[in-house]
């Protein structure tokens, strides 16, 4: 409950900061936000696009949140998404299989690719105590350059050197009935995978021994070890699952929302996953709603930019500011505590004093 309040306050503060930015460049914030929300939710096809935009964020958010639970900071979701997407694209462009089998193989390839990319930092962390932040950043850039050379080398597009060949419609995650239902939106099966992933992750974290052990390692590595848990194995496993989730996000991004891979870009969705996880307080359900919010921001800014001259980077800026406020949530906690204290003091003189330094 308290986490939810802190998240909501962070969002409001981020939106206020975005409004100030609009004022700063001489635009009207009310008009800007009206167009932004219209652009994201005005009609059924736009809602579909918003949901599709949110899909990779659900995965990257889950990936970051899951690793966070084990006390690991997976900043490498971008690279894991790239490799997952590359693996799935490679499968789709190489093998000639019937659609259901092909999709399964693509998803598996994405899971394996992303998982492998996170396995290495996990292994280094467990065996050599190499800080996962630095090693995942390195893995990001290795992924970046791998895609940079593998795509033009093996899957070059017909027109552009900087793009992979376009996937045929039936080898992507898009399905005619969904596209029709949402009136031509690019929403795709990725969203269902995302929802399933949220449910499975919530189950693993809350209801299984594995989830309990992972959380225990996150709370206190030494205590977990003392209790007989295999800390190293859990660290590697947590990174593996986190990477697999990010890899799936890559599949949704590159073979669902898009149908080709561009080189020279680390997907920003990987970094946004950190914001999504923070805002969702590292719970799968929270991640889901945070991803939806960011989906609205991202898909709405295009329309806003078309209607009035506000650069679409506004969405990224708002999200970045939200992370900053989420990171400094101690401040919000302090203000809340003070607020509660004054209220309880005025209502009940003998009442308990608000807890101090809860964060």
């Amino acid at each position: 409950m308290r986490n939810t309040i802190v998240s909501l306050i962070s969002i409001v503060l981020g939106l206020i900061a975005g409004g100030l930015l609009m004022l700063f460049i001489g635009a009207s914030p009310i008009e800007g936000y009206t167009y932004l929300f219209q652009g994201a939710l005005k009609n059924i096809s736009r809602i579909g696009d918003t949901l599709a935009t949110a899909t990779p964020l659900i995965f990257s958010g889950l990936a970051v949140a899951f690793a966070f639970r084990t006390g690991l900071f997976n900043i490498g979701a971008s690279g894991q998404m790239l490799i997952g997407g590359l693996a799935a694209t490679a499968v789709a462009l190489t093998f000639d299989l019937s659609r259901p089998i092909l999709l399964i193989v693509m998803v598996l390839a994405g899971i394996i690719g992303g998982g492998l990319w996170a396995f290495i930092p996990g292994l280094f962390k467990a065996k050599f105590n190499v800080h996962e932040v630095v090693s995942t950043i390195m893995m990001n850039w290795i992924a970046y350059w791998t895609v940079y050379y593998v795509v033009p080398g093996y899957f070059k597009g017909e027109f552009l050197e900087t793009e992979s060949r376009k996937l045929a419609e039936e080898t992507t995650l898009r399905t005619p009935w969904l596209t029709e239902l949402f009136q031509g939106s690019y929403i795709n099966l990725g969203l269902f995978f995302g929802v399933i992933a949220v449910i499975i992750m919530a189950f693993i974290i809350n209801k299984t021994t594995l989830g309990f052990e992972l959380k225990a390692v996150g709370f206190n590595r030494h205590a977990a070890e003392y209790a007989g848990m295999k800390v190293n194995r859990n660290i590697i496993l947590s990174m593996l699952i986190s990477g697999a989730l990010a890899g799936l996000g890559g599949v949704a991004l590159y073979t669902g929302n898009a149908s080709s891979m561009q080189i020279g870009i680390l997907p920003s969705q990987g970094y946004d996953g950190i914001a999504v996880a923070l805002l969702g307080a590292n719970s799968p359900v929270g991640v889901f709603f945070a991803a939806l919010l960011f989906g609205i921001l991202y898909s709405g800014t295009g329309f806003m930019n078309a209607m009035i001259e506000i650069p679409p980077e506004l969405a990224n800026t708002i999200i970045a500011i939200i992370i900053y406020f989420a990171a400094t949530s101690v401040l919000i906690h302090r203000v809340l505590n003070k607020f509660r204290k004054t209220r309880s003091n005025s209502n009940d003189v003998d009442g308990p004093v608000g807890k101090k330094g809860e964060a």
Partner: protein
Amino acid sequence: MWTIIEQIFPYAIVFTIPLLITALGGLFSERSGIVNIGLEGLMISGAFASALTVNFLQDKMQGSSILWMGLLVAVVVGILFSLLHAFASINLSADQVISGTAINMIAMALTVFLARNITGSGNIRITSGFTPFDVPILSQIPIIGDLLFTKTYATTWFILLVLLVSAFILNKTKFGLRLKSCGEFPQAAQAAGINVVRIRYIGVMLSGALSGLGGGIIILTYAGEFTGSVSGLGFLALASLIFGQWRPLGILGATLFFGFASTIANVSQVIPELAVIPPIILKIFPYVVTLIALVIFSKSSQAPKAAGEPFDPGKR
């Protein structure tokens, strides 16, 4: 072979310098106990500030003074940005990695947002940057002259001077020792009467100043245009810091290594001897080497012991 080395050398040095100064900034921050993975963002903010300043002044003034003014503004903007990180991680005990990530994201998004609003395209071009020159007399020395003293930039010599001064400050002055003590054992430092909060603020602000300078130098020497990113150099600077084991001369060696590795990768296609190596190998080489170095150094890491931990005066 010799001609290749002779050709590559000046470019490699030019590429090394922004990396060096940014890593040096990171060194001040981490030695004071604050992990700063926002170096990339701080560099971007400096690059943006210098490009904007020079772009604004280039029609009104002549000469290289506007370039130095651009660098000065880059330093100031870098400091202002780093204050966000300092406030979050020192006053609010925020998770320093998350705060640093937020700095990166804010800088990346905000600079492009503003640049697009100013120029329409999101890119800011400058008409002329620093021009390379041959150092008189010294460039006549055989071998060394060709390698080190031809086609050099004024900024290169300036940054090397900053490096020397920094090494002196860190190892020989009272301030340097205090800074390092805050990164190793802040409670003891405080017991000895050192104001840990103030020292850490200075450390983070220095990292902002030097990273901003690094970003500015990229624009005003070899880039010539702000495009909204510094292509991961901030992260490479972070890797250099670890590779150089948090020592000024160590990071000089590490950044030179990365500078040469990147330059070789960039020019490999036009040099027949190097074209046989697949470019992907050359490109991922620095990152793979860093990973290997991390593993090798893991047992004997010289990382500041308190880096990344919020300062809690009550903890003993």
